[in-house]
Every structure is written in C-alpha cells, then in structure tokens.
C-alpha cells in the first residue's frame, strides 16, 4: 500500500463519532449503550466497504469493522469480519495488527468464553484477589450485564479498600435498576461495611448519601451519626442530635417508597425501629425544651447497644448477600 493513501470518506467521521460515544458509555459502565454505539459503527464500516475499489483498502477496513464489533462485545460479528480478511492484501503493519488481534477475538467468540471468565472471577474472589478482578473487568466489560458489572466493581472496590469507588459503582448499579432490593440494601449498608476496614463511617456515609439517597441509605446514615456521636461514651451534641433527627424523619417520610420486600425485611426493620426509637426520644426531649445538661443526662440513660447489635446483624447480612450474589452471577 506504499505511496497510495486510503481516501477519506465522510462515513469515517460518523464512525469516529459513534466510537467516541461508545467509549464514553464504557467509561460510565453503560455497556448496553456502548454495544449500541460501537455496533452501529461496525455496521456502517461493513456497509461502506463497497466504496473502495482497491482490495487493500477493503481488507484494511474490515479490521476497523472487526474492532468496532469487538468494542461492542459482538465477538461473533468481529470474528466474521476477521475471517474474511486475506492477509496478503494487507501491508506489514496491518498484518501485525491482525495477528495480534485474532487470538483475542477467537477466544472471546468461543461458547465457553463467558462461563470460563465468570468461573475465573469467582476463583479470584475466593482468593481475595480483588484488584485483579477489577483489572479483568476493565478489558472484559461484557462478561456481565451493566448492573452486574457495576455490582462486581463495587464489591471488589470495597473489598480492596476503596469505599469511595464502591459507592460510585453501587450508585451506577442502582441507576439502572433503582428498585432492586438487594442493591438498595447493599448500597445503603456500605458505610457500615467500611468500618471493617478502619474507615470513618461518618465520612463514608456522607459520600453514600451524595450518590445514593433513599429511605434506607438515609436511615443507615442516621444510625451512623448517632453511634458516631455516642462512641466511647461521648456525649451527643445538640448539632448531632438534630442531624440525626432530620435524617430519621427523612427516612420515615420516604420509607414507603422502598420495595415491599425491603420494608418487611426483619434486619432492616430492626435497625430502622432502633434508630426511630432513639430519634423519637430525642424529639421528645427537644419539644420539652430541655437544657443541654438535661438532654445529656437523658441520653446517657439510653443504651445504644440495640442499634449496635442491629448494625452488626446488617453487616453479617451484607456479607452473606454479596457471597450469594456472586455465586449466582457465576
């Protein structure tokens, strides 16, 4: 192909635009949208091959079509394009690209690809190789649907110590499946879980609320505010008490919006009731216009252990739910 330039055609810009949008969608974890955009790009290239009279360009363009399909997770389409390429028509560089590309496409086009990858991920999970799982998901984003992908990213980020990334991916998963009871539960409980890694639950829960604000995440955040303020036998300040009450009131006002199964979940209900009882007691104190000293005296007579034991139950529940979800997904 030396000394012969491939002509530019306007469809190439259209393809570029679609690929840019596909890449942007992948950046957001939206593999459905990415598949649509990249898939369209592949179709346009495949349809445009007739624009070229030279076999060199036709076969070269097929590599682009295969690449777009590959990025779409449409591995069979990608494989079909590659199968039709005759390397003798390609220049040296394109032949090298093809050689590097073929084994990966062949592998992903196998029927066993999904099962094999998911099994591999499950094994890595058991070995607690969380960073490794996150890396694999970067280059194999289509092995789960976008909700499961976000969920896997979330749990592995949390387990590898990145609670902030965990919150982000839980929020992504909920964006696409907002009424999923398990996701709602897990996303809300993330701040409780963060305590296991020595993180400040209060900071984690503020971040959680920024991204995922529903009755359950607000209720968990309220409990954390309360327990945080009462930690090590500290006295609850007026400010913390008011914040706690406000959060609990918000949680109560929106509780009916949660899925029925979550509203009737015994662990959720226990935690909610324990927090609600504390908040109601505080409200009562405030409405009677108690002095700060009287408030502190009254609060010191309260036992936060119910809320603590309830939190621990939630953490255990969360761990088993994650394990179960991973087992089912694999």
């Amino acid at each position, binding site marked *: 192909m030396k000394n012969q330039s491939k002509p530019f055609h306007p469809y190439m810009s259209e393809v570029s635009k679609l690929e840019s949008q596909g890449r942007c969608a992948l950046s957001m974890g939206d593999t459905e949208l990415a598949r649509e955009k990249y898939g369209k790009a592949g179709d346009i290239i495949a349809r445009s091959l007739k624009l070229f009279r030279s076999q060199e360009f036709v076969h070269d363009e097929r590599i*682009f079509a295969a690449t*777009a399909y590959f990025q779409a997770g449409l591995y069979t389409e990608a494989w079909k394009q590659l199968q039709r390429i005759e390397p003798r028509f390609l220049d040296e560089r394109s032949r090298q690209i093809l050689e590097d590309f073929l084994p990966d496409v062949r592998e992903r086009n196998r029927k066993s690809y999904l099962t094999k990858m998911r099994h591999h991920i499950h094994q890595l999970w058991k070995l607690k190789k969380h960073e490794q799982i996150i890396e694999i998901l970067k280059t194999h984003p289509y092995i789960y649907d976008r909700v499961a992908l976000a969920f896997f990213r979330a749990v592995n980020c949390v387990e590898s110590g990145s609670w902030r990334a965990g919150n982000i991916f839980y929020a992504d998963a909920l964006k696409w499946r907002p009424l999923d009871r398990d996701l709602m539960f897990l996303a809300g409980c993330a701040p409780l879980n963060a305590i296991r890694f020595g993180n400040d639950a209060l900071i984690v829960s503020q971040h959680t609320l920024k991204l995922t604000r529903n009755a359950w995440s607000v209720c968990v955040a309220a409990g954390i505010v309360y327990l945080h303020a009462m930690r090590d036998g500290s006295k609850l300040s007026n400010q913390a008490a008011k914040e706690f009450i406000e959060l609990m009131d918000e949680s109560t006002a929106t509780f009916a919006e949660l899925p029925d199964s979550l509203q009737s979940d015994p662990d959720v209900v226990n935690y909610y009731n324990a927090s609600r009882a504390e908040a109601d007691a505080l409200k009562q104190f405030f409405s009677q216009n108690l002095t700060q000293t009287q408030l502190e005296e009254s609060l010191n007579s309260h036992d936060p252990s119910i809320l603590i034991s309830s939190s621990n139950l939630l953490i255990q529940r969360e761990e088993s739910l994650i394990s179960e979800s991973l087992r089912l997904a694999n």
Partner: protein
Amino acid sequence: MGRVTSKNFYNAAMDAPKTLPLDWLRSKHPRCDLHSRCLQAVVYRLSVDPTQLAEGSTNRIVDVENWEKDSDLHDCYRFDFSWSGCSALDSDSLLRFQRTWDSEAITENAAIGVMAMLIWELAQASVVTVRQKGRGGDYDFVQREGFEVMKVEVSGIKTAPHLSSLQVRVAEKSISVVLKFPHEGFVSVTAFDYGQEHLVKSVLKYHRGDLP
C-alpha cells in the same frame, strides 16, 4: 504565548504560557466528538502525571516542541492546559474512570486529546476521524481548512525517563506516517512524565514528501 523561535529552552523571561482550554476538544473538533472520547483521559493523565495535582486543580503545564521536517530548528512552546470550564469532571468521575480503563488505554486516549489540542493551536487543523484498529494503535486523520485530509500518527508514553525514549517513538511514528501518507502528515508523541524534571512533554512534527 510562551514561544521560543530556536532550538532553545524556556527561561524565566518568557511570557506566561498561553492557556488552551480542553473544551476545544468539543468546539474545534466537532466532527468526531473528541470531547466524549478523550476529555476524561486527558484530565486524568494530566491530574496524576507526572505528579498528583492537588484536589480541585484544573490545569497543567505542557511543554511542546513543534518541528518542521528536515530542519534543525524547532519552536518551543509552553502551554497551560485547562479544564476549569469542564463540568462533570469531579473526583468521583475520575475515580470511576481510573477503575474502568487500563493504564494503557488511558494514556493512548490522553495522547489523542493532547494531539488534538496542539494540532489546532499550532497547525489550525481539525481532527476528522479517530478510529481504533485492533487492540492497539489508533488511526487518525486531520484536516486543515482548505487542504486535503492527511494522516496523523499519535502515540502516548506514560513515563519517558530519557530523551531517547521520546525520540525513538517520534522516529518510529515518522516512518509510519510517511509510509502511509507520502504527501504530508503529522506525528504527535506525548510523554506524560518526561525526564528527570518530570514534565509533560509533547512533540508535534510535520512531514511533507519522502521518507525521513
């Protein structure tokens, strides 16, 4: 604007570096939606390389060499890449980005973004296609107003501790662009952590005619 018209280096007497807003990825290259493709990658790379910027920082200095073929002289520039006007680039979105793409893919797309910024500023050319080919390199075309479409070979290097690593990459890409496009074309190579001074350094080289 921070230009030195000889093979020279920057000094304190230079003007303040010209600011190049990353919003140009949208406004100057509308035909292939480079904004969607590269913005996060450029911001992420420039935020963490060569050194982690402080939270809330929205700019990074990039040193540039602009070469004409067969000339010992090149122009040196120092630009201030700014993303202060770009919304939706908070620390959370960059964290998601970092957990979604591998390092190589980020560097590759950041290099495309840097190329697009420089090729507009220094050659008044607009990118008309960026299409990925296989697992690796991209295949890009640019167009100067009133001129034919030409090729640009882009490459990104995350860490280039020595001058040679940057020079070698520029030479490789130069051969590639001339083989593909014998009439004219560009090479753009960006090292995001260059030399002992840990700079961001980019080379833009214009080719016309035969093999170098």
